[in-house]
């Protein structure tokens, strides 16, 4: 028995008759769908995990010296690789400015100073670079969590970030020489603690850093009364905007002297960067769909050309043009649908692996914002198939029945 839609049955049988050819054509769609979906999911997962991480920082502000221009979100200490030298007076927050900030913040939370410098270090015979932070010992205790060991008390003791510790094989008691021996003296410090991982933050990037007291820092680099950054922690999240505006109004009254950043701007900026990147890579993946479209087109033209006589028969016994058109659109649609469905299943698997590899966590893989790329890619894939099938189908439907019957 055949279903009521005999036209659909004919399309399906034609696809089945040329199984290998159809599979190969559908494979192009599978690849296209997989690449679009998994790249989309990767981008979404990146954004989601960054956003989640940054939401922990919603109650924090960073104040840096105004450098003209936008300042840039990555200009925070450590984050930018510490390109600037501290002797550049323009780039620092002065003691007076800090006092002002502290006065403003006092009602709402706390403000503390951050000194940072990127420098050469040596552990045993191994050389490397790291960001060196100088913080108030009480602040270190308050802000950072030591996973192993204790907090630095003297100017000769430091704590290190977990990534740095792992990379340089640092243990409690390890000695680090800070500074370039060719340029003068080095300072030797002892590791007394290893920090918990802190991930991506905008206030302090400690995972790859050495954190010591501010006395240690000024002892090496000088810069009394000058800070690279002031961090503000607001107790009540609702006051964050008030504090931000108050600092800006007070310090930038006459001219812009400081830049105040909250995490929302950073979130926005990262989300934007990720989405620009994702869109770009997705566009490249789109090329694979274009290739797929060409192969579908090819298969459809072949199918039409092979079946000219059959089209003539169908027309001569009373099949309308529109039905011939439908028959070939269905055929393209079946290829697209099969490709899209297989592609969807494959992109769940491949996407999962890609997200795990590139983002490091699949925590957000099943979030709506991530999974939405699967149906999206499916629709794009199937739609491309159908659009590609339109011209061959139109050709088929416009064949003259008598001419078509004469074909061999």
């Amino acid at each position, binding site marked *: 028995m*055949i279903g009521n839609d*005999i036209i659909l049955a004919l399309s399906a049988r034609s696809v089945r*008759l040329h199984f290998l050819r159809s599979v190969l054509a559908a494979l192009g769609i599978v690849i296209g769908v997989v690449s679009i979906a998994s790249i989309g999911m990767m981008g979404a997962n990146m954004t989601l995990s960054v956003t989640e991480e940054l939401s922990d920082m919603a109650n924090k502000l960073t104040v840096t010296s105004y450098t003209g221009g936008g300042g840039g979100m990555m200009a925070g200490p450590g984050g930018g690789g510490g390109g600037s030298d501290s002797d550049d007076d323009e780039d620092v927050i002065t003691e007076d400015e800090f006092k002002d900030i502290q006065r403003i913040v006092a009602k709402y939370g706390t403000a503390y100073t951050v000194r940072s410098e990127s420098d050469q270090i040596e552990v045993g015979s191994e050389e490397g670079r790291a960001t060196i932070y100088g913080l108030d010992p009480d602040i270190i205790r308050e802000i950072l969590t030591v996973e192993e060991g204790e907090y630095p008390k003297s100017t000769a003791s430091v704590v290190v970030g977990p990534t740095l510790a792992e990379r340089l094989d640092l243990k409690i008691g390890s000695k680090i020489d800070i500074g370039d021996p060719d340029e003068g003296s080095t300072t030797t410090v002892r590791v007394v603690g290893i920090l918990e991982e802190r991930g991506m933050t905008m206030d302090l990037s400690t995972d790859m850093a050495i954190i010591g007291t501010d006395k240690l820092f000024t002892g090496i680099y000088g810069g009394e009364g000058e800070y690279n950054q002031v961090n503000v922690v607001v107790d009540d999240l609702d006051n964050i905007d008030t504090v931000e505006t108050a600092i800006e109004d007070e310090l930038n009254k006459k001219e812009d002297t400081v830049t105040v950043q909250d995490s929302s701007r950073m979130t926005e900026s990262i989300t934007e960067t990720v989405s620009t990147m994702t869109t770009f890579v997705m566009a490249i993946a789109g090329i694979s769909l274009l290739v797929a479209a060409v192969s579908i087109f090819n298969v459809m033209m072949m199918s039409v050309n092979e079946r000219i006589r059959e089209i003539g*028969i169908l*027309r001569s*016994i*009373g099949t309308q043009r529109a039905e011939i058109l439908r028959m070939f659109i269905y055929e393209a649609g079946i290829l697209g649908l099969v490709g899209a469905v297989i592609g969807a299943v494959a992109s769940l698997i491949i996407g999962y692996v890609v997200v795990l590899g590139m983002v490091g966590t699949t925590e957000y893989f099943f979030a709506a914002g991530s999974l939405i790329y699967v149906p999206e890619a499916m629709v794009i894939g199937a739609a491309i198939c159908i659009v590609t099938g339109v011209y061959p189908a139109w050709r088929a439907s416009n064949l003259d*029945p008598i001419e078509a019957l004469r074909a061999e």
Partner: protein
Amino acid sequence: MSSPVIELDDVTKVYPLPAGDVVALNGISLSIDEGEFVAIMGPSGSGKSTLLNQIGCLDRPTSGNFFLDGKNIREMDDRELTDLRLSSIGYIFQKFNLIPLLSAYENVEYPYIMKYRKNDDTGRVRDLLALVGIDESLSTHKPNELSGGQQQRIAIARALVNDPAILLCDEPTGNLDTQTGAQIMEVLSDLHRKGRTVIMVTHESEIAAYAERTIVIRDGRVA
């Protein structure tokens, strides 16, 4: 008296070709009444198939008028012509022209589904297959698994499924051996005896002998 079911009035068909126009039909006038069995004969290239294609609503005259059941074909669009081919005309070809993707049964059922938008639940397809002498066991076979005679029987059943007013046959026995051809002619004669209008193109006089009337065509004209 009812008007003739088919009436051609000075019908001309010109195929415009780069090498010059080919006049396949050159002012043909003829009329065929309901229930007639007419054979159209003539030498190769005389325009027999072209004439049958006109009657079969596969084409429109270049000039002149063709009335089918009193309706002028020249004024119809492709949609209406297709509907006529589906419901009013049964076409039987020399090369059988079954749909290769469909089984014998489905081939017969196809025009029925096209017309009624549903499967045949009246048993008509089965009855027609029995009428043309196709065994039930063959009805699931695809055309390429059947002999020429069997295919032509199925083609006849297909042509009859929507109960058309006219049955057109273009050399229905042309691809069959004499004995099978005679069997097919028996089926057609039988249909004629039951009251159907049959128009058949042939160039064998033994085949034409089954018909009541013979029209001879020469150079696109009635001779």
